[in-house]
């Protein structure tokens, strides 16, 4: 069966460009805004399902006008259309407020699967997809490392502390993709050209005000214990013994 799919993508600072100002402890985010790496994996998963079974992929992003860039990138990778949910400053909203906006924007659409990265690169909460699932009243499968589709029933492997858990679930479903699920493709030149003709709709949702129940401080660098222990000019057995003792005293071994 062909799948009607929604992929949630978040625009984040490029984590590789983030530096910390040593004097102030404040992060320097750089100018580069990118698609959160886990969400690129979700886009790739949707593309692979579409290639194998057919279907349609709508990519959805909530944020300021700049999120059009991540939607365009997903379209260039091969998604069919975009939905931009205008939210002027998404970073003042908690995940539940954001989930409500997304669930609201999706409430009129029909879909088999909503895919999203396990968590975003910047805040790493990993909460929005599960909260969207709860608000829409559908099931979720998280930490997914393998997807096998058999019509309306899909089997998954998911990461757990005990190993890979195998599960079966029916659509509609929210799927959160783990890092090891796939390697996202780069858009081809042809894809980039095609993306220019693909539609990006703007959703009309009324953004709820930030919840008064939760707020947060600007991020600051944590202090790292400065000078480390250095063992030098000692026989390997002695150096190893000192390390093992240190690991044990720090409850690491």
């Amino acid at each position: 069966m062909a799948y009607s799919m929604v992929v949630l993508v978040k625009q984040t600072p490029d984590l590789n460009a983030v530096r910390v100002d040593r004097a102030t402890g404040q992060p320097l985010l750089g100018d580069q805004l990118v698609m959160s790496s886990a969400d690129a994996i979700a886009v790739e998963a949707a593309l692979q399902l579409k290639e194998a079974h057919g279907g349609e992929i709508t990519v959805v992003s909530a944020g300021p006008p700049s999120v059009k860039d991540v939607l365009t990138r997903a379209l260039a990778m091969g998604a069919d259309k975009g939905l931009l949910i205008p939210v002027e400053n998404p970073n003042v909203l908690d995940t539940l407020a954001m989930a409500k906006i997304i669930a609201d924007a999706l409430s009129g659409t029909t879909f088999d699967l909503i895919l999203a990265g396990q968590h975003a690169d910047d805040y790493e909460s990993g909460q929005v997809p599960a909260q969207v699932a709860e608000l829409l009243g559908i099931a979720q499968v998280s930490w997914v490392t393998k997807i096998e589709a058999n019509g309306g029933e899909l089997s998954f492997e998911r990461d757990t502390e005990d190993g890979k858990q195998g599960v079966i679930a029916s659509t509609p479903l929210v799927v959160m993709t783990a890092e090891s699920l796939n390697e996202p493709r780069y858009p081809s030149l042809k894809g980039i050209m095609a993306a220019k003709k693909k539609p990006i709709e703007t959703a009309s949702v009324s953004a709820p005000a930030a919840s008064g129940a939760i707020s947060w401080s600007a991020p600051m660098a944590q202090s790292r214990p400065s000078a480390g222990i250095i063992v030098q000019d000692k026989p390997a057995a002695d150096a190893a013994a000192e390390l093992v003792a240190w690991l044990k005293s720090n409850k690491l071994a």
Partner: protein
Amino acid sequence: MPNGVLIVAETHDGALRPASIELISAGLAAKAVAGGSLTAVVLGEGIVTAASDLASRGVDAVTVVDHTRLAQFTTDAYAFAVEQAIRAADPRLVIFTGTTAGRDLAPRLAARLQAPLAANVTAIGGDASEIIATRPVLGGRVQSDVRLGGDLAMLTIGPGAFPKAEATGSSASIETLDVDFSGAPERVRVTGVATVDAGGGASLANADVIVAGGRGLKEPDNFGLIEQLAAAMGGAVAASRAVVDAGWRPHHEQIGQTGKTVAPKLYIAVGISGAVQHNVGMQGSERIVAINRDPDAPIFKIASFGIVGDLFDVLPELTKQLKA
């Protein structure tokens, strides 16, 4: 009026998960700031031992939900049971483990009960009216204080952020909460669990311990030394860009600018000089151990513990002593 702290303890094969024992310490820290009592709800099937273990480690009360529907983790059954435990305890704060299950469950329940939620918390402060939860963001390079007001708030804690709670010598009361699962949806069915052998298949994203190897290993076959150390520590194997580019290791193991960003409890860099392109991918790690022949290698500047020496001598010795 909601009051006190509820922690949600997980079990595996009838025993408490290590993360659940750390969770008790988080619960005690939260109780110290939020007041009230500390109740632990423990879920699973056949968990009498886990419940008495939990009761012996400083909590005020234990609630047991023992049911076959909880033998394997599923979001639907666990959320159903925990929701009832929350309604019964009416706490100010609910704390979940930072396991794959805890991180799956907490947002679902926070949406259900309209509660503010902070993930991956490493310290808890404030008071009952405003709980302050500290959490790392941006790959662990910086941290943010999240203030949680309202009547009910929720947290998941970071792996290894809190110490394992010790036995106190006394025991809390243990009560059973009877949950009628006939109303619980069963939309996701578990078909089995394929266990990974210690170390070998551990995923980088979830690993507490990562052992990474670099060019200092000289040739691909020597990566066996890294694998043996990782196995001895129950950790995952990672690699520097140099050895991935050389084709010794797969790209999914690569740490750094063009690879993965990780922040485990312990990162052991072996034969890695510590170029900035590598370090951006791991400098959020709680503790860093470096083993390198070159005393001027930049990796030693960010290491909590460094051994200047020949890895071919140090690694076998280290693995042997850890196994002893």
